[in-house]
């Protein structure tokens, strides 16, 4: 059994330190699509155990509603990651994020540990999803294999901090330094049919720069973005929300393709444009985005 929400909407993934109760207790009020409880970089080495207990009790007790709860575990080169997975699965997390992923083998190892934990704690096997963060040149080059490595895999995130350093560059406003890695990871994700998320934007004073980067993310075809502050959420949701014209167009396309398909017609024209089944997922995604923004209440969202 694989989680029915594998392809759910994930415009924003908000990072929260699992060591800080003040961050974890009520972050759902900011309405991110997902939260990422961080056991890795945000937690000091001496507090890894305490963070796992906080994580476990938060997962068990705090009602996050529709907000998806993902856990960033420690790297596979640490003594922590297996216990991180046990605590996450026992608590009922919806997903695990693998940091600094460089190979398909890492995904295979994490999936095996998740399955063992699901069996140990009586969770439905296959319920816990996986995503991988690509943070190195080797990870970028292996992105395709990583995206196709596991049946729980729902997406990959590109992580710019370490990657820019490894590429001997830094953040530039136009994003040219990240164009190739972003493009390569996007291509790998699309070829494998999984989602793709862009890196965090760390300068909270530069909201114009943030807006510009999110706009570029949307134009490149990303599904969403990792965010580090609740103030960033509304901007991402606004930019990823379709226009009224796009919504009307998508509604007509979905309706027409389904009607024609029901009559056995595969290719047809609508307003002079050729349409076939290949247009359906994109149009359905526009409606799902509109629905999430409260702009569409119809019944065409799958």
């Amino acid at each position, binding site marked *: 059994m694989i989680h029915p929400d594998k392809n759910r909407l994930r415009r924003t993934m908000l990072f929260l330190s699992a060591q800080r109760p003040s961050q974890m207790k009520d972050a759902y009020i900011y309405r991110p699509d997902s939260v990422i409880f961080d056991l890795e970089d945000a937690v000091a080495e001496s507090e890894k*155990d305490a963070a796992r207990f906080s994580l476990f009790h938060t997962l068990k007790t705090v009602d996050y509603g529709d907000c998806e709860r993902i856990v960033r575990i420690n790297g596979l080169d640490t003594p922590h990651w297996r216990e991180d997975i046990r605590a996450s699965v026992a608590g009922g997390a919806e997903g695990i994020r693998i940091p600094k992923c460089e190979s398909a083998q890492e995904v295979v190892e994490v999936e095996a540990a998740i399955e063992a934990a699901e069996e*140990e*704690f009586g969770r439905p096997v296959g319920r816990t999803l996986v995503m991988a963060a690509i943070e190195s040149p080797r990870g970028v080059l292996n992105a395709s294999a990583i995206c196709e490595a596991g049946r729980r895999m729902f997406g990959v995130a590109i992580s710019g901090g370490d990657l820019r350093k490894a590429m001997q560059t830094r953040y530039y406003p136009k994003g040219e330094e990240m164009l190739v890695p972003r493009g390569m990871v996007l291509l790998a994700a699309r070829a494998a049919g999984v989602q793709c998320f862009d890196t965090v934007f760390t300068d909270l004073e530069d909201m114009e720069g943030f807006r510009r980067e999110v706009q570029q993310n949307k134009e490149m075809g990303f599904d969403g973005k990792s965010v580090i502050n609740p103030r960033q959420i509304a901007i991402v949701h606004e930019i990823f929300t379709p226009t009224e014209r796009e919504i009307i167009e998508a509604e007509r396309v979905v309706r027409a393709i389904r009607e024609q398909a029901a009559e056995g017609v595969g290719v047809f024209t609508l307003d002079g444009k050729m349409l076939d089944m290949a247009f359906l997922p994109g149009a359905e995604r526009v409606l799902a985005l509109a629905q999430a923004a409260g702009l569409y209440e119809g019944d065409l969202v799958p």
Partner: protein
Amino acid sequence: MKIEVAAMAGTLESSDVQITIEPAEQGLSLSISSSVLGQYGRQIKRVVLDTLEGLGVRHGRVTVVDKGALDCTIRARVTCAVYRSAGITHSIPWGEVPVNDPSR
């Protein structure tokens, strides 16, 4: 579980609670300080004692410095302190860790 050595968990940040647990010969003794003691003192005491009972801790001296923590945070810090006292950080029996009972 038996409290063999003193252990601490949690911080003095807002929304957190710092728990110190020390060995004692007979029974449990509890010292609580909180900015919301008048309003939540009994609740904090109940959650701490309930968590200790769930972990099978019968003897110990517990010091609680509360900074407005949720019940689940109190449970997390108490449980962490008890496991630290036992020197256990991995292979936690998560299925047996006492959690909040929503019916109470």
